[in-house]
């Protein structure tokens, strides 16, 4: 999973190859931090280390983590997608309306996935062949999509039938469905990254797009496909979100895009692309979930939530900056 091929340097103290790989992992700092935090919380906070609580934490971050896993690929390819909040909203609108007219869960899911993928493709075409920088293109589509959802959905709040909620509610195998969906997406992305040419190409394009172009990689097509992936994941996240809350609202998932980016960055993926792993967005999302949960369990007022979260993100990114300067990765 070590994603960057690094030049092996002769070292004074012999490091085992495993140790060296550990150190080169982009997600190692955040993983260590998460483990330490969990250990501390297990000791200090009663009620944290129960299965029900931990399950609740992961269920809560599932939507963000699902989207983050796909947007992570976009970021790895050197682009960014900040339209995901509105994308999830419009996909849940599609999902909800198909579910209300046709019932069931699979047909609405297909519709949401297709809608998400199509809009993702538009984002991708604009950002690659259209040469609109992706941050601008996706800010634009974010506005447009939210406008459409608000116009079409407006103030209506629609309740979904139980059989249409199966992706976010219930636990048929003893594990909540949203966690199963998250795990499936994680495995799919892991397979994509380590066993497909496309997955490897994403790193190549993000690491050095000119070198990738010189090698003959179709960099536009690869980036476009990551945007499609991001859109499809929003369709899936919409199904999970609707299953969890059971209601269709036009303002759903407002502000999700920045939570997603925060999870990716917290987990250790480099925002300019080429370095990161599929574990990163999951760790980032879970870290945020654990912290919010710890605050709730310790009865800290909700007014301090964002402050703690902001300080944490800042600490994490500065730690990464200091580490990179000290280790001489950049100067």
């Amino acid at each position, binding site marked *: 999973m070590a994603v960057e091929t690094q030049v092996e340097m002769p070292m004074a103290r012999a490091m085992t190859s495993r140790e060296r790989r550990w150190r080169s992992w982009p997600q190692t700092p955040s993983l260590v931090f998460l483990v330490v935090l969990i250990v501390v919380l297990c000791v200090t906070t009663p009620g944290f280390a129960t299965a029900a609580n931990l399950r609740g934490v992961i269920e809560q971050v599932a939507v963000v983590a699902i989207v983050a896993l796909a947007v992570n690929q976009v970021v790895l390819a050197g682009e960014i997608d900040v339209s995901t909040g509105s994308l999830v909203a419009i996909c849940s609108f599609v999902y909800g309306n198909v579910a209300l007219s046709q019932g069931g869960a699979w047909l609405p899911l297909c519709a949401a996935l297709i809608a998400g993928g199509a809009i993702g493709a538009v984002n991708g075409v604009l950002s690659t062949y259209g040469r609109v*920088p992706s941050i*601008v293109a996706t800010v634009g589509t974010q506005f447009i999509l939210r406008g459409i959802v608000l116009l079409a959905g407006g103030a209506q709040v629609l309740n979904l039938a139980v059989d249409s909620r199966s992706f976010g509610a219930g636990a048929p195998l003893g594990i909540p469905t949203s966690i199963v969906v998250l795990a499936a997406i994680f495995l799919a992305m892991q397979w994509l990254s380590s066993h497909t040419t496309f997955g490897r190409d994403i790193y190549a394009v993000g690491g050095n797009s000119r070198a990738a172009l010189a090698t003959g990689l179709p960099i536009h097509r690869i980036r476009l496909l990551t945007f499609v992936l991001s859109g499809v994941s929003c369709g899936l996240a919409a199904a999970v979100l609707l299953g969890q809350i059971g209601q269709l609202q036009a303002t759903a998932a407002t*502000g999700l895009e920045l939570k997603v980016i925060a999870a990716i960055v917290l987990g250790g993926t480099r925002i300019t692309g080429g370095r990161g792993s599929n574990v990163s967005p999951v760790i980032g999302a879970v870290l945020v979930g654990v912290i919010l949960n710890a605050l709730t369990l310790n009865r800290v007022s909700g007014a301090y*939530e964002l*402050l703690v979260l902001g300080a944490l993100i800042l600490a994490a*990114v500065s730690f990464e900056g200091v580490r990179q300067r000290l280790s001489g990765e950049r100067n």
Partner: protein
Amino acid sequence: MSVTTSLRRLTWPSRDAVLAVLFIAEVAMIGILVPGYLSPYGLLDASRQFAEVGLIALGMTLIIVAGGIDLSVGSLLALVSVTIGFSFQAGLPLGAALFAGLAVGAAGGFFNGVMVTSLRLHPLVVTLATFALYRGIAFAVSKGAAVSSFPEWFGIFGQTSIGGLVPVQLICFALLALVLALLLARTPFGRRLYAIGNNELAARFSGVNTALTRIIAYTLTGCLVGLAGIIYTSRISSARGNAGYGLELTVIAMVVLGGTRITGGSGTVLGTVLGVLILSYLQDGLTYGGVRSDWALIVTGAFLIVAVLLNEIFRRVRR
């Protein structure tokens, strides 16, 4: 350069001219479609809605020209507003509270700049963190409450107009637009911003103190957010932690619509002013015409994408 290229460059309309024509056409069209819209009072009064975002957009232009970005401006506006309101409630004289608000704005911008330059972190990452942090502090200080009992005179920044016609904040915006336009186009500092945005490494090797220049750009933006925070708090006469929510993306949209390249190195303050005017009067016209404001979101997004698409096409034609 061949004669045809120079001719084409001469006759090809500048981006600012295109935007100006677009703006006039837009206002004229709203005027035709919505009877009674075109009155000097109404047109000037609309500036109350955009002076704040406009001020922030001026600073954002400097940051983006230098190849940076600032996502924290909406949160910083909330922090400034809360600082003013709650330090006033705690017994500080209002004048001192306003000064504290400005200082918090400047400090917030300065902090962004220092984090970006000293740790060499990507500005998107740093300001995403301060985006959460600044609003987090605002929420923690205000605990979800609002302060809205200000003395009468506080209204001068956001509610009064000169001669009953020109809102005070419009004058403020116009003056600062002029100052920043001169700063960007006519001073060594402005040239350094372009140099950094075009090629930071080359700028550093040419002797530009890139870190200091970028810190100044962020701090200046912070000051403008501080000023915008004063005007905002005065206009709605209330200080609350959720002020300016989602403002950052609107501001960036205005700057980019104004022709500033998001990757840095090119852009003008005049362009940004036109970007601000185009998007704000669009919104104002739609609201005045009784159209659902959700349409404004759609048109804003479409304008943004089309503008940048056209920009890219222009750039390729020019070459």
